[in-house]
């Protein structure tokens, strides 16, 4: 589904990604871990199509097509979803209007029938139960005055409504207490399917107790320094990141 080959990207003049290689197949959950500044969030954001980063080398294909050529909205329409590390507040646009507009933009691009307000509400209510989200959240401005936990839950709620094929989660767990983390993880697990892949960017192993990955990759200085199964995350939890750095230095 996703093929990342030798991906290099920079912000302004600073190189951040320095040759990422990664293959993600449908049905798989990949965790991307690594210390601060290793390029985890940049990778997530570049995949979603943020133009602030310049890709200087390498390629990304999604379903066999060049992804990097496409603007952010076309990537979303093709089924890519980024759960933001810092969801943006948009006062004056209600959450439900925003989400219906987004859903219909995606449906329109795929030549599917648009949902009216009533059908949408039915769908939204169903997904809200999954994330234990209160009805009032629909009428409030997008993320406006939401607590940190509400914002993160709202991201996963959007994911549940938009039903992406490739879901990228950028540190969705940071700042969440354990109860909120469990709810978010349940929401994600309910969406796991053989047709859908997840890229879970996280700083902490804790999340991976609840969203159990098939693969764990450790990013160091813009490259994947080590890959393994879920046990790699536990090893990292125990030993920290420094041994990876030592390994990289030794090789």
């Amino acid at each position, binding site marked *: 589904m996703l093929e990342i080959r030798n991906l290099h990207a920079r912000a302004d003049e600073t190189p951040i990604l320095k040759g990422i290689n990664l293959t993600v197949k449908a049905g798989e959950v990949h965790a991307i871990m690594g210390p601060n500044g290793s390029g985890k969030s940049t990778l997530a954001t570049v995949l*979603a*199509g*943020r*133009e602030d980063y310049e890709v200087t080398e390498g390629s990304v294909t999604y379903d066999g097509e060049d992804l990097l050529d496409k*603007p*952010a*909205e076309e*990537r*979303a*329409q093709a089924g890519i*979803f*980024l759960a*933001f590390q810092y*969801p*943006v*507040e*948009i*006062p*004056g*646009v209600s959450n439900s209007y*925003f*989400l219906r*507009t*987004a*859903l219909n*933009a*995606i449906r329109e*691009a795929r030549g599917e029938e648009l949902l009216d307000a009533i059908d949408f509400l039915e769908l939204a209510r169903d997904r809200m139960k999954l994330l234990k989200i209160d009805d009032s959240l629909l009428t409030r401005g997008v993320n406006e005055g939401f607590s940190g936990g509400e914002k993160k839950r709202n991201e996963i709620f*959007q994911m549940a409504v*938009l039903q992406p094929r490739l879901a990228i989660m950028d540190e969705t767990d940071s700042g969440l207490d354990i109860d909120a983390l469990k709810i978010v993880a349940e929401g994600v697990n309910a969406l796991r399917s053989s047709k859908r892949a997840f890229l879970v960017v996280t700083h902490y192993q804790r999340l991976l107790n609840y969203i159990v990955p098939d693969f764990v990759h450790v990013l160091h200085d813009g490259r994947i320094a080590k890959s393994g199964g879920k046990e790699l995350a536990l090893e990292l939890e125990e030993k920290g990141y420094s041994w990876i750095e030592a390994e990289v230095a030794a090789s």
Partner: protein
Amino acid sequence: MTDTMERILRDHEALVQERGADALHALRTEGIARFKELGFPDTHLEDWRFTNVAPIAKSDLTLGRPSTNGVTPDDVARLGFGGSLVFVDGHYRADLSDAQVGVSLASIRDTIDFELKDDAPAFVALNTAFLEDGAVVEVEGELAEPLHVLFIGTDGKACHPRNVYHVKRNGRAEIVETYVSLGTGEHWTNAVGVVLVSENAALKHTRLQLENESAFHTSNVWVSQARDSRYTSNVVTLGGRLTRNDITAALRGEGSLGTLNGLFMTRGSQHVDNHTLIEHRVPHCESHELYKGILDDASSGVFTGRIHVYEDAQKTDAFQSNANLLLTDTAVMDTQPQLEIYADDVKCSHGATIGQLDEQALFYLRSRGLTKDRARNLLIRAFAGEITKRLDVAAVRERADRLLDSRLPGNEEG
């Protein structure tokens, strides 16, 4: 002396000849004398630093006279909201109006102080020089329906309507003024409004400026609020080549609340200048002010918001906010909050922002599948929506929203 000043003096002389020594004659004479003394304001004056009225001073416009031609009921239906008082070039047209005015300026000459003689600024003096007509509305009890007043300007004409609204004790009313153009040529509306809100009375006052983009529009609204009164002003400006709106709301009775809302959206080389002054003259009054501007192309805007809290006006609660959105690098906005506070036990706050669309928010929306244009439009509409949602006459709100929509990228009218 400019040609325009000569023409104004000639027009005034002709009006005096025509009307003779009627009840308003003395006022007109004082008005023209004062305007002659002041002349057109220039940008050396502090109040006019960012607004150059030279295009008005150089324009070739003649005084609008009462007539029964030119405008049809179809025009009124197209331009207005129905149920209206209709004015063409500043003159009441009974034949086009659904609502009736039984009150003339002359008849209220002795009961309402609408003269504004003292220190009248130039355009108020000029309005007084041509005092003849305007919407005069006295409200007792509750006005069941919003009253619409439609001002139609025709090409080549200048007009000076004087509107006087008096909502009497315990009364309640909603008045919507809509300013439109019949054609696409230059014309000038120089309106003055005098608004009295008596004890425990409430008035919602909306001014919708939709004139063509060659039109000049100047307005001065003077509001006086008595004890426990409520006054809300919504000033929405989408039209006009050059617009200058002055509003002064004087809170003269304890427990009164004044709310001033404003929104403009400009394009091309349109210029909109809003000057507001809230006078807290007595204790325990509240004022809320929110003005927003959206500037596209090479348009420009000005906001000057003064709040004056008099020495006696303890326990004043005043809030002012001005937010502006620049859609291009060539649009220009000048904003100046001015607080003058002479009392010591008051709550006063203000904030002003000038910014571009939030890049983070744009990316967030695009990452959810919205195209760049759609994302941009959604953010612009949300910004404007904070004001339009306050327009509680549905037909007015819908029209304002529709016009805003039609100006968004990708939606422009042909």
